[in-house]
């Protein structure tokens, strides 16, 4: 039972899993990269990043590249830790 406790509801969506996965292996990913890799719409992606941002699992940086606004994300220490816990729990649960 304690294994299920480590399954984090915050990651309970394919797109959120995807966002965290990408940010675990890349220092940064900008909005367009996430959108392209996950095949999500602007609004859809934005709502998931907001949710993850709200629990401080990811960090947002907004800047300008030339004149174009650019938003990029990175995983916070907390986010990485929680996601690792989540992955471990998943692996143990299927190992059973």
């Amino acid at each position, binding site marked *: 039972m304690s294994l299920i406790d480590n399954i984090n509801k915050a990651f309970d969506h394919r797109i959120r899993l995807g966002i965290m996965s*990408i940010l675990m*292996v890349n220092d940064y990913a900008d909005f367009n990269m996430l959108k*392209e*890799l*996950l095949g999500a719409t602007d609004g859809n992606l934005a709502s998931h990043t907001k949710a993850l941002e709200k629990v401080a699992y990811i960090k947002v940086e907004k800047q300008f590249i030339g004149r174009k606004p650019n938003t990029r994300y990175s995983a916070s220490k907390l986010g990485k830790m929680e996601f690792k816990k989540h992955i471990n729990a*998943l692996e143990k*649960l299927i190992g059973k």
Partner: protein
Amino acid sequence: MESNKYLEDISEIKNMMSRSSRFISLSGLSGILAGVYALIGAYLAHGVLIEYPRTRNRTVGDEWLDFMFVEKLSLIAIGVMACAILTGMVLTLNKSKKSEEKIWNSTSKRLVLNFLIPFITGGAFCLVLIQYKIAWLVAPATLIFYGLACINASKYTFGDVRYMGMVFVILGLINTQFLGYGLYFWALGFGVCHIVYGTLMYFKYDRKQT
């Protein structure tokens, strides 16, 4: 039943991690063709070396002072490289079209950059060797630096490239002990090795696409 969902989640995670950091549209076929071009180049180079008595007898000497000699060999090398790169780009573009992945994205840029750093360094170093007339180390040096470039780039594409890189490095190091046979090591490395690994990768990755 739930373990199915967990399994799906895990594979989704692994898939996304790999897709976002590794460029997987690299074509194995381009490796095979690069090997073929290299063997052709080696054959042509052999023709050039035969013209000069010292290299025909596999000793190293003043040929390297002869500008035409160096120029001819360099032209062959550049020709082989150009053909290999062009073919590689065309085939890789082809392959990525099938998987609908944009070819020039952050993963491919990272791959190219990490390959080029040791590669260009090696190129510069070889020019220095030629400059100081230590040209008999050029063949081993090209093998070693190319191998290092592959090892470095393997983090951003198929991991198998790492092993190919190691083979090149080892070949290059062995070559330093058999200096007169530079061309054979060159043909073995850039020719045979590419063909072998290209074939392995073709059957491992390219086929699955269709």
